[in-house]
């Protein structure tokens, strides 16, 4: 049987089959799995949204944004403030819009900064948001934190899965679009991009805002499972660092790398952290260092490497007793 040949000629079919299997798995999971497993999957999928939306902008443009927590937290707070006024499914796009608008403002001011300065600013933004909201809560609203009415875990799972689909499709189409090419050229050489007719500021700000909208929507969907939120919980820097680590771990060059990285990392984080916190962080660190040292292109970088190595092995096995052909023939 010729497996490699089968895979390469039926690649599209296999991909569709694989996606259908995932779809069936996620839709049917609440039927037989425990509620805690449903919650784990929901969280993992939230990380997929954060990692993919982070990679849409930062992975391509080479601007290291540490701000996902700011936009994610805005989504959580949108939910906290509007939960009694509007239906859940209406708050999701509103949370996205709030983050989009805020990212437009932030982007217009900060995307002139480059390299480390941009990273530091976005880091500061998250800290600033935490402080300002705490200030508003204690002085204006005289309260600390908000209760959030729980929503059925099944509904949350399906909703976040819907958002995953939308985010991944958006990432895919942005990468293939002219805006994706423009952003990639900015990542390659921003000065040259500007001189080749690209309005670099507009491109950066627009895609930064689009990517932030998905983070905001993810915040809205995640809020009900947190039950209680305050500024420290909603704007935790954890939500900024995790998506970046996931994207680097999985490989930013490929969309599937980011998704796989988020799935693996998110699952490990959710299941192991509770029981083995210190060991988890230790293992986490070691894996990350190893990936950066040996797999600069992340897990996705393994695929061409394995194809190279295994391909040779398979070819040799197939040839059996026949003579090894010359390298260049």
């Amino acid at each position, binding site marked *: 049987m010729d497996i490699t040949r089968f895979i390469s000629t039926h690649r599209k079919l296999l991909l569709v089959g694989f996606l259908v299997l995932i779809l069936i798995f996620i839709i049917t999971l609440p039927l037989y799995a425990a509620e805690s497993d449903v919650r784990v999957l929901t969280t993992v999928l939230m990380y997929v949204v954060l990692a993919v939306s982070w990679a849409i902008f930062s992975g391509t443009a080479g601007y290291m944004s540490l701000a996902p927590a700011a936009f994610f937290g805005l989504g959580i707070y949108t939910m906290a403030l509007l939960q009694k006024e509007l239906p859940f499914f209406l708050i999701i796009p509103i949370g996205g819009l709030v983050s989009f608008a805020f990212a437009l403002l932030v982007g217009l001011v900060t995307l002139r900064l480059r390299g480390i300065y941009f990273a530091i600013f976005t880091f500061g933004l998250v800290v600033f948001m935490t402080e300002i909201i705490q200030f508003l809560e204690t002085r204006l609203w005289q309260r600390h934190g908000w209760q959030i009415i729980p929503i059925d875990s099944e509904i949350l799972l399906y909703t976040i899965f819907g958002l995953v689909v939308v985010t991944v499709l958006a990432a895919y189409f942005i990468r293939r679009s002219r805006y994706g*090419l*423009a952003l990639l050229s900015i990542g*390659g050489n921003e000065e040259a991009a500007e*001189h*080749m*007719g*690209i309005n670099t500021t507009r491109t950066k700000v627009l895609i930064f805002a689009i990517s932030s909208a998905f983070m905001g929507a993810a915040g809205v969907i995640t809020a009900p499972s947190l039950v209680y939120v305050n500024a420290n919980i909603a704007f935790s820097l954890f939500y900024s660092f995790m998506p970046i680590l996931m994207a680097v771990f999985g490989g930013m060059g490929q969309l599937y790398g980011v998704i796989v990285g988020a799935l693996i990392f998110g699952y490990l984080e959710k299941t192991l952290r509770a029981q083995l916190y210190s060991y988890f962080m230790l293992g986490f660190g070691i894996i990350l260092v190893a990936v950066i040292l040996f797999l600069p292109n992340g897990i996705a970088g393994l695929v061409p490497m394995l194809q190279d190595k295994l391909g040779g092995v398979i070819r040799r096995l197939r040839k059996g007793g026949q003579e090894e052909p010359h390298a260049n023939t």
Partner: protein
Amino acid sequence: MRILEGQGVTKYFGGLAAVSNVDFHVDQGEILGLIGPNGAGKTTLFNLISAALPISSGEIRFKGQKLNGLKPHQICQMGVSRTFQETKVFANMPVFQNVLVGAFFGSSNHVSGADAAREASQALEFVGLSAMSATPINDLTLANQKRVEVARALATKPELLLLDELMAGLTPTEVGEAMELVTKIRDTGITIFMVEHVMKAIMGISARVMVLNHGEKIAEGTPQEVVVNETVIEIYLGEEAHAGS
């Protein structure tokens, strides 16, 4: 007809005038050479034209339209494209995509994907790099990377092309090929304004030459006129002449 015209063009860096009160013009369809010792302000002048730097005073007009205050991408879309002294290619893309960026974004009207791809491959063919379209850009020699920059600039469909030291760092054979390329571009009707250190190249193909020194224009004329100009000999070639005497 004057396609590009500058009046009193001045650029200060702090208190230092890098370009000082320079009047210049480029005639449509010609090759204008710009020479001068290191630090004379040649690249600064290019940066002012392409809006990489804001002008301190004076004005630059392209086809009668004022360029002051425009952004680099607007200048490019108006029809002025450039290459860079230190190559600035998109290192994260193969050769073809590098040129595709120019084809997609270089003109002010919307370019379809198919048209952009066609223009990009035409531009690559024009500079003779069709065979390398799928190659990662960093695998190319310096001479070929510079050709990719030329192709990228041509893909934006410029009327005026600014070439900043296209031939620096090239071997004598490559210089010859680059000279042929520049003449070939001029023959398609594109006006060329080029900074060059390689005297053989500039004297061989320029219709006119302009000389800068310490940010000031000290001479202008045909290559034959400029090489016999005494000021030019003194400050530009004179260092060696004096050293010899």
